[in-house]
């Protein structure tokens, strides 16, 4: 059989219109009066990317190669008959070109579903699993490092720090972590916990409290953050979800990037809120176990509600801590549903006086 083809000699861009004839182990290329003979065993097949009937062959010992281009449905079959070992591989773009709008939408929807599933379910579950496997000693080391770096700016109140630690020990909470409370002088009403056991309490928040129950509530809440590995969990979670996002973003342009990142921020905010809630409930449980009046936690939040000078009330949708009213309501609901007994703990009251 004969085929019309374009031949390039590898030395110049000149097109030689040739007739290719497959014949006894070789391809004969006729151009006017000239003849080029290709040994079929030395032919290299180039993968075609726009039409599976388009064939591109390379020929030669080494670079630069001569090449032959032709479009004929029967040619590849003839070639294979001649040399069955020839590797013919076509990426059939026709298949992609023939996709109907319906199947494109279907495939796209399936991909989106897969991404959403990994983002909302698979990755968070995996991250939680990994986070729970992190040994407390590693968390302590991490917390120690962070504490070391931030403590330089602290003005530590040694006496109150001692009293606060005594207070915590009096609560008799069993812990996997070496809890170390530090009281610092600062005009901000705040307290926070680091992974591995450091709890930092600002003096201003102590001043706003009226009873030892409130302080117990605060410690129970912060301690819950530590014991439930909240920092570690959110660290792994953001690492995991960030991986999904960057995978998605690498194929989407800038506008979508901004949209997705903002959506992600709102979502991680809500995760932080769910951790706060978890710490509230766990803290409440600890208080009840220690026989302390849970009203302390409600009072604590009521004090926190009193405006810090100049501070703005943040809408709940955007705030890390769910609005305090909401939290008070949730806690009251939780403990009022149970019949509980508690008594005044004299020892705690004693220590509280030192604070």
């Amino acid at each position: 059989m004969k085929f019309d083809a374009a031949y390039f000699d590898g030395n110049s861009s000149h097109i030689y219109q040739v007739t290719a004839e497959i014949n006894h182990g070789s391809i004969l290329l006729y151009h006017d009066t000239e003849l080029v003979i290709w040994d079929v065993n030395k032919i290299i097949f180039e993968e075609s990317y726009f039409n599976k009937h388009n064939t591109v062959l390379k020929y030669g010992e080494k670079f630069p190669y001569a090449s032959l281009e032709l479009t004929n449905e029967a040619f590849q079959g003839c070639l294979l008959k001649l040399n069955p070992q020839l590797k013919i591989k076509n990426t059939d773009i026709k298949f992609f070109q023939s996709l109907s709008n319906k199947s494109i939408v279907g495939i796209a929807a399936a991909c989106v579903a897969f991404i959403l599933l990994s983002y909302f379910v698979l990755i968070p579950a995996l991250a939680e699993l990994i986070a729970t496997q992190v040994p407390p000693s590693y968390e302590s080391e991490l917390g120690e490092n962070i504490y070391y770096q931030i403590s330089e700016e602290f003005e530590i109140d040694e006496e109150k720090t001692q009293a606060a630690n005594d207070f915590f020990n009096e609560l008799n909470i069993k812990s996997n972590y070496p809890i170390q409370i530090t009281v610092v002088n600062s005009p901000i009403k705040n307290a926070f916990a680091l992974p591995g056991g450091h709890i930092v309490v600002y003096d201003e928040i102590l001043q706003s409290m009226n009873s030892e129950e409130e302080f117990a509530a605060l410690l129970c809440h912060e301690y819950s953050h530590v014991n439930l590995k909240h920092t570690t969990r959110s660290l792994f979670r953001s690492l995991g979800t960030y991986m999904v996002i960057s995978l998605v973003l690498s194929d989407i342009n800038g506008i979508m990037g901004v949209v997705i990142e903002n959506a992600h921020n709102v979502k991680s905010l809500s995760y932080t809120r769910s951790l706060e809630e978890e710490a509230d409930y766990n803290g409440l449980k600890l208080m009840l176990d220690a026989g302390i009046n849970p009203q302390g936690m409600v009072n604590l939040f009521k004090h926190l509600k009193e405006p810090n000078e100049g501070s703005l009330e943040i809408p709940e949708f955007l705030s890390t801590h769910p609005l305090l009213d909401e939290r008070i309501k949730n806690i009251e609901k939780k403990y009022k549903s149970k019949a509980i007994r508690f008594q005044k703990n004299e020892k705690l009251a004693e220590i509280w006086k030192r604070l």
Partner: protein
Amino acid sequence: MELITKEPKSLKFNGSGGALFGILIVNFLLTVITLGIYYPWAKAKRLKYLYAETELDNSRFTFHGTGNEMFKGFIKAIGLIIAVYAVFFLCMFSGIMALRIIGFLFFICVFFLLGPLAIHGSLKYRMSRTSWRSIHFGYRGIRKELIIMYLKGLFLTIITLYIYLAWFVCDLRRYIIGNIRFGSISFRYEGKGGDMLVMNLKGFFLSLLTLGIYSFWWFRDMMKFYIDNIKIIKNEQAYNIQFKGTPGDIFILFLLNYLLIIFTLGIAFPWVMVRNIKFIYENSMIDGEFDTSNIQQTEEDYKDATGDDMLDMLDLNII
């Protein structure tokens, strides 16, 4: 026989958004499933398709790079970056002040060197793997020259508070484009830093004054400055390329692209890509006198894809 016409010619893109979508979605899924390892093969597929659908004078381009080649480059690039970080962190945590300083300086040096190294490696690889009618492209730049030029440009750009950036960009373009070969064809870039600075200042302030409306003229000017300053050199004769797109065309292109992306939540990305490619090809007119029929093969083979993969990791865009 080939007809030699004097009508200006341009590259033609025959691909479709649907086909590109199919390729990208398969690439994407395989990349996710293999945790990124498929990436080099995905890239080879994408490039092969885009090149094969690009046509000049009725012949298509070919990308000869393979996933295997790029995988080797990918591994080398990752290895290099991990090694750099390892040295850096070892020095930082050694607790010895001198080592910390050395580690820090080492990191800064490597950080600045990675850019030109990646650009050089990528060009050498990408160009040598590109052909048209069996004639291969090539990049003849010398690594050391590019590094010196890059570091000098970066330094001057920083100390002149970015004023020098225009000259830096033009120097880079002149060097890179001047070292690209397409067989016996060479190229020249004639843009000057001063002109670029004036263009950008004018574009910036007028866009500000017109609340962004002028930005389409500015974008047109930037395209013209890039494309019109490229000359094709054949047998010591220079041929022009001219960008013909108007601010109106650019506005329509951007607007539709934007709407497509927003209303399909990004799924129309391949169609947008095809629209952009077509827009640039169709508006870049090559001098009709430029004869493509007797270009001679001149370049050598080159198979190391490390630079190309590194460039992707650094997220730099050169061409």
